[in-house]
C-alpha cells in the first residue's frame, strides 16, 4: 500500500454481537481525487463498511490505513485525526443535525471539536456556506426551520469545515426527486475538484453510481463480489450478481425490448451466510463447486471478480 493520499482497509471484518458478519473480509482503497461507488442491497454490509471508514464501527479484525498510517489500534488521537481527515454525509440530512442547535453552532462545532483556529476557519466556513447557496440569515435558524434541501447543504458544508481529504456519502440522493438529484451530484463533483477530495458514494441507485463514479465495488452479504473501473463493470459485468443487479435496474423501456434477469429468492441472513460462494443460493449459473469452495477476488486490476464461472469478458 503506497503511503500516498489514500484511505484503505485490508481484510476488514466486522462481526456484530449475535454473530452477524456484516463485513466479511474486505480490502478497498479510496484515493484523493477519485470517486468510488459502493453498491449493494440491504444486508450487504455497505453502510457498515462506510461507517468503519470514519471510525464509527470498530473492526473485529483487519487493518485500516489512512495516508499510510495504520489506525487499527484506533487510539483517541488516531480517531480524532481520522475524523478530521475523513468526513461523512449521512443519508437523512435533517435527522443528522442536532435539533436544538442553531445552524451557525452546528457549523462551528467541527472547529471546536478539533481545536482549530476559529478566526482563520470561520471565514472559510462562510465561504463554503455561500458557495452552497445558503444565506447568512439561515445560520440563525434551527434545523427544523429550514427545508430538506437546505439541511442537505448544511450537512455537506459541515463535512467540509475541517478541510478533509475524504468524503463518505451514504445514499446522497435517497429521497430526492430526479430534477434535483442532478444538482446535488453536480455539487459533489464540483466540491471534489475544488477540494481535491476522495469521495465514496454508497448507494443502491445504479444509475447514479454508473454515471458519477470512477471505480465501483459491488457488495453481497459482506463481501465484494466485483470491483473495477465503473465503465468496464457496467458494460460487461463478470459476476452473475452484478449482471443481475444491472439487469434488474429499471430503465426507460416502453417497448419492453429488454429481457430482464430476475433473481429468485432473497438475500440470506448475514448471521448464517451460505457455504462456499455466498451468492450460490440465488445464482443462475450455480455449479456444485460453488457450494463448497469460496471464490477469491481475481482478474486484472481494472476489473476483478469473485466467481468460479464468470460471464464472458467484453473483449
Amino acid at each position, binding site marked *: 500500500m503506497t503511503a500516498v493520499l489514500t484511505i484503505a482497509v485490508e481484510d476488514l471484518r466486522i462481526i456484530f454481537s449475535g454473530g452477524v458478519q456484516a463485513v466479511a473480509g474486505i480490502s478497498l482503497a479510496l484515493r484523493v481525487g477519485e470517486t468510488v461507488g459502493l453498491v449493494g*442491497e*440491504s444486508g450487504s454490509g455497505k453502510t457498515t463498511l462506510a461507517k468503519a471508514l470514519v471510525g464509527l464501527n470498530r473492526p473485529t479484525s483487519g487493518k485500516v490505513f489512512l495516508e499510510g498510517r495504520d489506525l487499527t489500534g484506533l487510539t483517541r488521537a488516531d480517531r480524532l485525526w481520522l475524523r478530521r481527515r475523513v468526513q461523512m454525509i449521512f443519508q437523512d440530512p435533517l435527522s443528522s443535525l442536532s435539533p436544538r442547535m442553531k445552524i451557525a453552532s452546528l457549523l462551528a462545532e467541527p472547529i471546536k471539536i478539533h481545536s482549530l483556529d476559529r478566526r482563520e476557519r470561520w471565514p472559510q466556513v462562510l465561504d463554503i456556506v455561500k458557495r452552497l447557496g445558503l444565506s447568512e440569515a439561515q445560520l440563525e435558524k434551527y434545523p427544523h426551520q429550514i427545508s430538506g434541501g437546505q439541511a442537505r447543504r448544511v450537512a455537506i458544508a459541515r463535512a467540509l469545515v475541517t478541510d478533509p481529504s475524504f468524503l463518505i456519502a451514504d445514499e446522497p440522493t435517497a429521497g430526492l*426527486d*430526479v*430534477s*434535483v*438529484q*442532478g*444538482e446535488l*451530484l*453536480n455539487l459533489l*463533483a464540483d466540491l471534489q475538484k475544488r477540494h481535491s477530495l476522495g469521495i465514496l458514494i454508497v448507494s*443502491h441507485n*445504479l*444509475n*447514479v*453510481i*454508473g*454515471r*458519477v463514479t*470512477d471505480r465501483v465495488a459491488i457488495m453481497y452479504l459482506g463481501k465484494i463480489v466485483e470491483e473495477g473501473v*465503473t*465503465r468496464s463493470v*457496467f458494460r460487461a459485468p463478470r459476476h452473475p450478481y452484478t449482471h*443481475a*443487479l444491472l*439487469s*434488474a*435496474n*429499471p*430503465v*426507460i*423501456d*416502453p*417497448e*419492453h425490448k429488454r429481457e*430482464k434477469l*430476475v*433473481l*429468485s429468492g*432473497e*438475500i440470506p441472513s448475514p448471521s448464517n451466510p451460505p457455504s462456499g460462494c455466498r451468492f450460490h443460493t*440465488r445464482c443462475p449459473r450455480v455449479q456444485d463447486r460453488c457450494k463448497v469452495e469460496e471464490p477469491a477476488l481475481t482478474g486484472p486490476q481494472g476489473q476483478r471478480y469473485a466467481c468460479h464461472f464468470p460471464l464472458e469478458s467484453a473483449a
Partner: protein
Amino acid sequence: MSADALVKIENLSVDFSTAKGALHVLRDVSLSIPRNRVVGLVGESGSGKSTLALALLGLLPDNTGRVAGRIELDGENLLDTPPEELQKLRGGRIAMIFQDPMTALNPVFSIGTQLVDAQRNRHPKIGRRELLKRAGDMLKRVGISNPEARLAAYPHQLSGGMRQRVMIAMALLCEPDILIADEPTTALDVTIEAQIVKLIGDLRADFSGSIVLVSHSLGLISELCDEVAVMYAGKVVESAPTKNLFGNPRHPYTLALLACEIDPEDEPGEPLTTIKGGLPDLIDVPKGCIFAARCPSRFDRCAEEPPLRDVEAGHRSACWLA
C-alpha cells in the same frame, strides 16, 4: 376511449387547509382510467399524484378542505357516496397496495386472519375455512412458497419483499375492479423490486381489473404501464399511451424529466441535467401555465393557462406549443 372508461375523473380539485391558507393540491384534474389497463401516475414530490390516488380510494386526509369535481366509478360519483358505502367499496371494488406494507398490515394479527378479513367485504357469506383456503392459494400465486406456514406467520416475521407479496395477495383477493398501487417497490431492493415487477406483469394476464400505478420512477412506469399521466404541481400536464409519451413527449416538463433521468452510458464528467427553480407556491398559485417559471420554451402566451387538450388521438398535453 372515454366510452370504455371504468373511472372518469372530471375537473377534480382538492384543497388542504393549512395555517397559511388553502393549499391547492389538485387543480382541475381530468383523467379517465380505461378497463383492464395499467395507468401510471408519474410526478415528483408535490405533484399531487398520491393525493389523486387517495381521492380515488375516498381516503383524503383529515385536513382536506374544499373538494370539487367528480370521480365516477361506472357512472357513480364517489365524491357523493356516503362513507359507509365507500367503506364497502374499498376492499371490494377498489383495493390498494401501499409503499410500506408494514404500515398497512396489522402487526398483532396473523397473515391468515388478515387475508380472511380482507375478503369479508367481497364474500360475506363464505366461511372462514374456505376463505383461508383461497388465501393460501393466492399466496402461492403471488410466489410465496409454503403458504400454510406463512398464513400462520405475523407481519414482522416476513421480509419486506414477502410482505409486499402478501399485500398484493390481499388486494387481489378482493377481486377489485381497480387496484391502486402507490410506489409499491420504492422501499424494496433492486432485485426484489424486479421480482415484484415481474409478478405484477405475470398477474396481469388473469387480472380483469384496471391498475393505477403511482410512482416517481419513469423506468418502472415505462415497464409496467399501458398509459401514463404526468403530473406537476397539482395538474395533469400530459397523458398518453406509454410508447407515445416516452417516444414523442409533447410537454416541456415531460421532456425535462426525461432529460434528468441519469443514463450510466452518458459521458462521465459532464454536468447532470436538472430542472432549475422549484415547485410553484400552491397556496397563492401563479396565473398562467403552472410550469412556465421553470420552462425553457416559455413565451408570451404562457401567461394564459393552456388547457389539457388532444394533440393527437389519445395523447393530451397542456402546452400551447404541443
